[in-house]
């Protein structure tokens, strides 16, 4: 009875649970910090469980629709509305479910980690509130089927992220990063809002499926497309607009940086959703596809080359995050470029998209892990400066193991998960255009080179006199990192299972606009 209730209402519960916990967390902090820790951890565990439950349900039974305020939660179209969905709804298709899985796993690992790593700071009540609201924002963004609701969640996410980036204040430098992030993301959100206004003015619709059904691709729609694509590409850190990324990533607390990676992936999801679901074949797929490919290649090359000379370990990893985002844009961009050509699509288009989407989940896991190890090092020695580090492998053995796992995965060394998704991208992109594939491989080599440098300068060498009393980080932080490391290894050893069960349905759901429209307008699967 209670399980069926939870499964039935899981789309609403997964947003409401962290939201209520966000309200309660600062109040209980006044009673006892331990109570707050249990509430935050428990709420995050419940949210993750609900999210995973919803995702497994979606993978088993197809797209889930949840309409807010209707007589029945699955009643997408009011009987007398003439066949249009009028209420806000969540549309959780396999692509959304994939993002939900990523968010759930990472957020749970991060909350375990941050319960210890941030314990010495003031303002923890607000910290957890914003943390939970950020998770709410991501979850809502990836599951909503209403475009104005998407904007609302985007704003929740960016306001919460901005507050958290500035959390440490640190003589103003963290606030500086937050200002840069927030001004840009507000601009982007306003551009998205103008695009929403344009859709509304033309089609009198806010539901994505309805807009997609009525899409004409007029000049105004082209303008809206440009506004949305540019804004969301900026928010995911694609290269000519990536400047905020290293600033914000390096100045946020490490646990937040790990979550910011998922936030960027959520923006990327929004970009793919707009291109594939709102427009799909009505747009000139080759043109937009090549735009994404060019953005992707630029991101890969500039990201990795800028990472090599960095001295701040988190800035370096942030540039690598940009570079890895390039792989996703490349993979999915190739899929988009051949959209509408069924023979190309089945020859290599789907594999490229699967590679790109598989890379999203892999990147969130290993990049989250790497940022958490960087945070663990900072927790003990109080600096991010690579020039001042050395010899920590003698005392922080587990952190070193986790760092090696993350670094090998990001560099695409078999048998870790980064290799599997990169291999899919290389081979499918090679069939599309060999030069792009070669660039992707060279970037991967440079990534390895850069992480060899980081590994050498943090962990290798003799024990430095200033760090001879350094101990391993506390166990909750190790558990948080361990969860992610286990996921990285498991995905690396069994990539085919992950691709077949999680990624391939997501790629097909993303590419198949007709199915999406039929599910919503057709009144539920």
């Amino acid at each position: 009875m209670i399980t069926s209730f939870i499964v039935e209402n899981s789309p609403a519960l997964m947003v409401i649970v962290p939201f209520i916990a966000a309200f309660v967390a600062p109040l209980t902090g006044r009673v006892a910090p331990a109570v707050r820790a249990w509430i935050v951890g428990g709420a995050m565990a419940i949210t993750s469980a609900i999210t995973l439950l919803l995702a497994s349900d979606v993978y088993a039974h197809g797209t889930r629709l949840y309409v807010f305020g209707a007589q029945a939660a699955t009643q997408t179209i009011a009987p007398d509305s003439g066949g249009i969905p009028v209420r806000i709804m969540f549309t959780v298709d396999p692509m959304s479910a994939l993002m939900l899985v990523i968010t759930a796993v990472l957020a749970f690992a991060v909350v375990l980690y941050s319960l210890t790593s941030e314990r010495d700071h003031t303002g923890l009540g607000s910290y957890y509130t914003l943390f939970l609201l950020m998770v709410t924002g991501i979850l809502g963004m990836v599951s909503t089927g209403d475009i104005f609701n998407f904007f609302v969640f985007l704003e929740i996410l960016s306001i919460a992220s901005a507050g958290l980036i500035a959390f440490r204040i640190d003589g103003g430098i963290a606030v500086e990063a937050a200002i840069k992030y927030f001004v840009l993301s507000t601009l982007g959100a306003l551009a998205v809002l103008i695009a929403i206004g344009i859709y509304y003015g033309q089609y009198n619709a806010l539901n994505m499926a309805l807009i997609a059904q009525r899409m004409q691709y007029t000049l105004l729609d082209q303008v809206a497309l440009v506004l949305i694509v540019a804004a969301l590409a900026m928010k995911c850190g694609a290269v000519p607009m990536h400047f905020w990324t290293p600033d914000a990533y390096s100045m946020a607390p490490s646990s937040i940086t790990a979550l910011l990676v998922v936030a960027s992936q959520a923006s990327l999801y929004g970009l793919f959703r707009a291109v594939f679901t709102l427009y799909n074949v009505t747009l000139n797929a080759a043109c937009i596809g090549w735009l994404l490919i060019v953005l992707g290649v630029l991101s890969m090359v500039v990201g990795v080359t800028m990472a090599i000379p960095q001295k701040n370990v988190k800035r370096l990893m942030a540039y690598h995050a940009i570079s890895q985002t390039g792989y996703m844009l490349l993979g999915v961009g190739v899929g988009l470029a051949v959209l509408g050509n069924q023979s190309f699509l089945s020859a290599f288009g789907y594999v490229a998209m699967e590679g790109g989407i598989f890379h999203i989940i892999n990147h969130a896991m290993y990049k989250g892990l790497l940022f958490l190890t960087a945070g663990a090092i900072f927790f003990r020695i109080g600096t991010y400066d690579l020039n001042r580090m050395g010899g920590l492998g003698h005392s922080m053995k587990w952190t070193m193991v986790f760092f090696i796992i993350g670094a090998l995965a990001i560099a695409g060394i078999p048998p870790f998960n980064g290799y599997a998704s990169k291999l899919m991208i290389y081979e499918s992109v090679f069939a599309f255009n060999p030069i792009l594939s070669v660039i992707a491989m060279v970037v991967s080599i440079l990534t390895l080179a850069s992480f060899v440098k980081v590994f050498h300068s943090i962990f290798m060498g003799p024990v430095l006199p200033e760090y001879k009393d350094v101990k391993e980080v506390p166990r909750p932080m190790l558990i948080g990192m361990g969860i992610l490391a286990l996921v990285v290894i498991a995905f690396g050893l069994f990539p085919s299972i992950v691709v077949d069960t999680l990624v391939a349905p997501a790629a097909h759901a993303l590419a198949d606009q007709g199915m999406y429209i039929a599910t919503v307008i057709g009144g539920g699967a």
Partner: protein
Amino acid sequence: MKRVLVAAIFLVWAAMLCTIPLFLSFGDPAATDMDTYFIGRGQADAAANNIVTSVVFDFRGFDTLGESVVLFTAVTGVALMVREKRKGEEHEDE
């Protein structure tokens, strides 16, 4: 050089935005079916004479919840910025 580029960017943006007054006509929306439904059903479904109220609190009530969450988030963020910090909590990296 930079000034020319900035001017060019602004010109393109102006052109981009000018498509709105060129292709949308004020006072004559292209399609009205969703709002016709709201106007027709607002009184019966949401029991409000003011249709905007019924849209804000019933048909799109979830957005209103989101809006209050945004407000709450911003207030929390402001509280975080003006908090009293412990001595030695801040450090200057780099």
